[in-house]
């Protein structure tokens, strides 16, 4: 958005002493991973993302601890507290601020500003790190193209101006900042929605601004210069070079004159390296063309030496790694890399002897040749380092074998349990009704199997994972069309079939629209071309969720009205749930600025409302669990299961709705409509067979529809299968401060609420409504068989899919 004008101005004004780089990060682009990558110079391993919430300290060799601290440099840190988690006691002094409350745009930044400027006048540090977080949080909450984002960037521009002023004022000979090197960089980018974690261009490409307070005497030869220039709007020339973030650690290490981190596979970047005047000889007195040549030759010699050390370090790391690692690199690739290294090394030791400094008197031929030779060296080492980095990027799949084995084990175990359960239930039925045998495989069964198989296969492909929501919707639509065909055939329930199709279309539209940060409703308004400022339309996004809530509670009342058992519990549940619905409405009313309620409640008091809702939900669940123990068996098994299911769902619903935010009630409504359609369409088959329960083949289409619907709802609520698909904002509803376990629970409820918790708990409906008349033990036997048969394919495909997905992500991340 071109808001950081001061950096652009500096880069175009001051010629060679400051520069803008396009810094390419390696995915995953989460902060913790990037910080690790920046300080160790290695490639982040994928499995670490899971640790992003509770960062364990880095134990590998890294820039901060092993090198800076051990070499007696004092490091001062301020800002994001991830640094302190990574480097618990390496900082000389630190001012950490909590980083995980994404709603808080200012605490970290204000803290930074408060400490940054005074520190610039102090002499008690060698390296100062200031990590600002406002832009990241503004992106997470509001998206990139938003007013808070622009505000934040403008604020940064001011801060940078001040910092640079201070630095410049002190940069005279003998000044405090004579040899200061100033870097401004982003550790990762953001998508347009303000999320990050993946590997798209927006997330990976960041900028790095580097400024040396002392001008280097000459510029590097063009062969090492990769910059591309363009004219900006004022007609000034702005040049960008490209740097890999991988190279950052070694380059900074080289600039500071400390050993390279052990595990780094980066290359010292010539442009960034040359920017600091410290890498050049002290400027001599004779300023002539000859002097320039001499400087350049010396710098290149210096740089070639640095690269030589760099290559040696990388080679050693690769050797150690492949000797110790189980998986390691393929041997032919290793040999190839080793060959390049040997060649470069031989070349170097061979030529270094012959290489004379070019004549002390006049620039002559030998000068030119020595430059060419040096250039050759640099190229040889660079090609070695580049090939190592490429090899590492392509092959570095560090599997967490134990975790994967565990996942596979859990999957197999669940499969085994399912099979056993089905066998047992089958036996139960055989006893109660021996006439039941297996019947033939129907066309519908085949088509369902086909759909599930397609879905499972689609998870083997990277591009299908990216568009999983669309694929799921496509399959849902297909099953909907099949149902429509069926209902035309039976001439019944046309409305349900069409409603189901319409629902899937609506889900699809809103999934596409809703991927932006705004509430689906208001975007819909804008799509219709309705002026946002109109007062009537302003109220609709506020009122529609409330209406949906009222409708939900009405449905709940009605569905329980004609059940007579468990009377006390029922009333208790209904009142609890409706009370929490009312609380949700109150919460939104308080949050909304539309109703212009006076801010009578502080933020702390405001948090009590969601907490009460969580408490009610939890209380309902635990009382349900207690009731399970104390209640003896009722005669009417079906009915009791029904009421238990309703109670379970109503207990969960309020929590899920409030965590989902304003889309919550609409999602719940969509859920109910979809479920109703699926159930009704499922009964289509059974009633046609003159109401007998004898036929035992489960109709698999409703189950498939149920499962696909759940997947669609997952995407509908604005999630997708990537780490940037997590809605971090949801973890802070009702709480302001960060607590790992609590927030993780809320986040997982948000993520899996609609797609897993509600549909799985709702599965008994599917069975109950298909067999409304089954009674007693026989009904129970049928019920359990049905239930297990119903759950089985769902879990089967789900778990298989997840397992494949997990492995694929591990392996495929570096491929893409």
């Amino acid at each position, binding site marked *: 958005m071109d808001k950081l004008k001061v950096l652009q101005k500096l880069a175009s004004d001051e010629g060679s002493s400051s520069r803008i780089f396009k810094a390419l990060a390696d995915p995953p682009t989460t902060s913790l991973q990037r910080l690790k990558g920046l300080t160790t110079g290695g490639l982040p391993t994928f499995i670490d993302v899971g640790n992003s919430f509770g960062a364990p300290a880095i134990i590998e060799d890294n820039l901060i601890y092993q090198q800076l601290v051990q070499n007696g440099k004092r490091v001062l840190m301020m800002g994001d507290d991830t640094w302190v988690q990574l480097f618990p006691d390496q900082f000389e002094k630190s001012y950490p601020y909590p980083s995980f409350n994404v709603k808080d745009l200012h605490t970290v930044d204000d803290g930074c500003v408060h400490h940054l400027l005074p520190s610039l006048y102090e002499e008690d540090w060698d390296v100062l790190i200031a990590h600002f977080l406002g832009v990241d949080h503004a992106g997470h909450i509001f998206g990139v193209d938003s007013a808070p984002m622009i505000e934040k960037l403008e604020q940064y521009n001011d801060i940078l101006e001040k910092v640079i002023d201070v630095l410049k004022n002190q940069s005279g000979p003998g000044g405090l900042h004579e040899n200061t090197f100033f870097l401004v960089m982003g550790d990762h980018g953001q998508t347009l929605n303000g999320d990050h974690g993946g590997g798209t261009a927006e997330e990976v490409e960041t900028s790095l601004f580097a400024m040396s307070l002392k001008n280097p005497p000459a510029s590097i030869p063009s062969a090492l210069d990769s910059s591309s220039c363009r004219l900006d709007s004022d007609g000034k020339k702005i040049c960008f070079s490209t740097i890999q973030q991988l190279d950052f650690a070694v380059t900074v290490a080289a600039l500071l004159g400390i050993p390279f981190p052990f595990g780094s596979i980066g290359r010292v970047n010539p442009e960034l390296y040359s920017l600091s005047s410290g890498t050049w000889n002290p400027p001599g007195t004779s300023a002539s063309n000859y002097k320039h040549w001499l400087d350049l030759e010396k710098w290149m010699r210096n740089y070639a030496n640095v690269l030589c050390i760099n290559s040696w370090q990388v080679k050693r790391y690769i050797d150690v790694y492949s000797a110790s690692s189980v998986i390691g690199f393929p041997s032919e690739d290793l040999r190839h890399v080793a060959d390049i290294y040997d060649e470069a090394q031989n070349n170097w030791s061979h030529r270094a002897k012959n290489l004379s400094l070019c004549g002390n008197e006049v620039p002559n031929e030998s000068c030119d040749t020595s430059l060419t030779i040096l250039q050759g060296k640099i190229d040889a080492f660079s090609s070695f380092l580049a090939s190592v980095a490429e090899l590492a990027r392509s092959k570095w799949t560090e599997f967490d074998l134990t975790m994967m084995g565990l996942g596979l084990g859990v999957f197999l175990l669940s499969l085994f349990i399912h099979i056993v359960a089905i066998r047992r239930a089958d036996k139960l039925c055989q006893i109660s009704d021996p006439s039941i045998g297996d019947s033939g495989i129907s066309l519908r069964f085949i088509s369902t199997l086909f759909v599930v198989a397609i879905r499972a296969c689609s998870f083997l492909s990277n591009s299908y994972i990216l*568009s999983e929501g*669309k694929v799921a*919707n496509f399959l849902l*639509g*297909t099953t909907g*069309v099949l149902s429509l065909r*069926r209902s035309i055939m039976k001439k019944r329930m046309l409305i349900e079939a069409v409603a189901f199709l319409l629902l899937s279309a609506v889900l*699809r539209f809103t999934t596409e629209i809703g991927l932006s940060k705004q509430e689906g409703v208001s975007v819909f308004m804008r799509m219709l071309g309705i002026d946002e400022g109109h007062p009537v339309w302003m109220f609709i996004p506020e009122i529609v969720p409330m209406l949906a809530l009222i409708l939900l509670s009405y449905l709940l009342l009605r569905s329980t009205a004609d059940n007579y058992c468990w009377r006390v519990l029922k009333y208790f549940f209904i009142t609890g749930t409706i009370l929490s619905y009312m609380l949700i409405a109150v919460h939104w009313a308080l949050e909304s600025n539309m109703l212009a309620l006076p801010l009578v409640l502080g933020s702390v008091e405001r948090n009590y409302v969601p907490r009460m809702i969580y408490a009610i939900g939890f209380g309902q669940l635990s009382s349900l669990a207690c009731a399970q123990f104390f209640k003896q068996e009722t005669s009417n098994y079906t009915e009791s299961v029904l009421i238990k299911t309703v109670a379970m769902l109503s207990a969960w619903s309020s929590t899920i709705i409030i965590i989902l935010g304003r889309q919550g009630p609409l999602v719940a409504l969509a859920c109910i409509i979809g479920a109703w359609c699926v159930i009704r369409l499922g009964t289509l088959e059974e009633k046609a067979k003159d109401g007998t329960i004898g036929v035992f083949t489960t109709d698999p289409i409703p189950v498939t529809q149920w499962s696909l619907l759940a997947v669609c709802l997952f995407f509908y609520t604005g999630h997708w299968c990537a780490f940037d698909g997590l809605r971090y904002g949801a973890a802070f509803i009702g709480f302001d401060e960060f607590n790992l376990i609590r927030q993780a629970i809320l986040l997982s409820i948000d993520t899996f609420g609609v797609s897993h918790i509600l549909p799985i708990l709702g599965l008994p409906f599917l069975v109950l409504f298909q067999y409304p008349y089954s009674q007693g033990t026989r009904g129970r036997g049928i019920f359990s068989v049905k239930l297990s048969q119903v759950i089985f394919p769902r879990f089967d495909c789900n778990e298989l899919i997840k397992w494949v997905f997990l492995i694929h992500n591990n392996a495929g991340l570096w491929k893409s």
Partner: protein
Amino acid sequence: MGKKTETNRSYRDRNASVTVSVSFMVHLICVLGLAIAFWVAQNVYSINLVSDPTQTLILLWVVESPIVILLYSLLRRNPEQCSYLKAVGRGIVGLPIGALLMAFGAVILGAPIGIQYLEKTVNWSLLMSLFTVVPTACVFGSSWEDWQRLFAYTKPVEVLDYIICVPAHGAVIGTWLGAWPMPLDWERPWQEWPVCVSYGAVAGYLLGILASLAFMLVFGGRRQHLKGE
């Protein structure tokens, strides 16, 4: 209603005039129409589905629609009660209605929405309508029973049913399969909506025609033979 069905049935039995050779001719002319449309697009306007999908689709359905409507109206049910012009009229009305149905189906299954796709979707659904709805409309009109029999039960009885039913199902299934390459990240121009879907539809239609001919030779021929005896 029941009585009408009875009369229909009797008509159908009496009026088994559509023979395998006639249906072969019908199919041949339809395929030739498609081929001519493709040829014209390629050689006269030098466009194809990939380079200019909208124009090509327009050309395809403009060339194909008179052929389909006029041909299938010849095969109409109950020629005594229903004039040729009426059948043509049914076909013309069926074209946009079928297009609406097809567009609805496509949008449910995930066709992109937006102004820039509107033209393509409209033209594609008109072509699909020609493959599926229009022949049925021309032949059976608004007889719900026949529609149900053909598209819900998929139980073609006589030669005429095979001519209509099998290619229509082929086109729909071909379209469905044709949508599969769309999410792949090959970034080829033909992965765009509705290019590969149109190819799938045409391919499915052609396969359906072949299949319907085969069916007719196997079942229809035997039936005719039995009748002859």
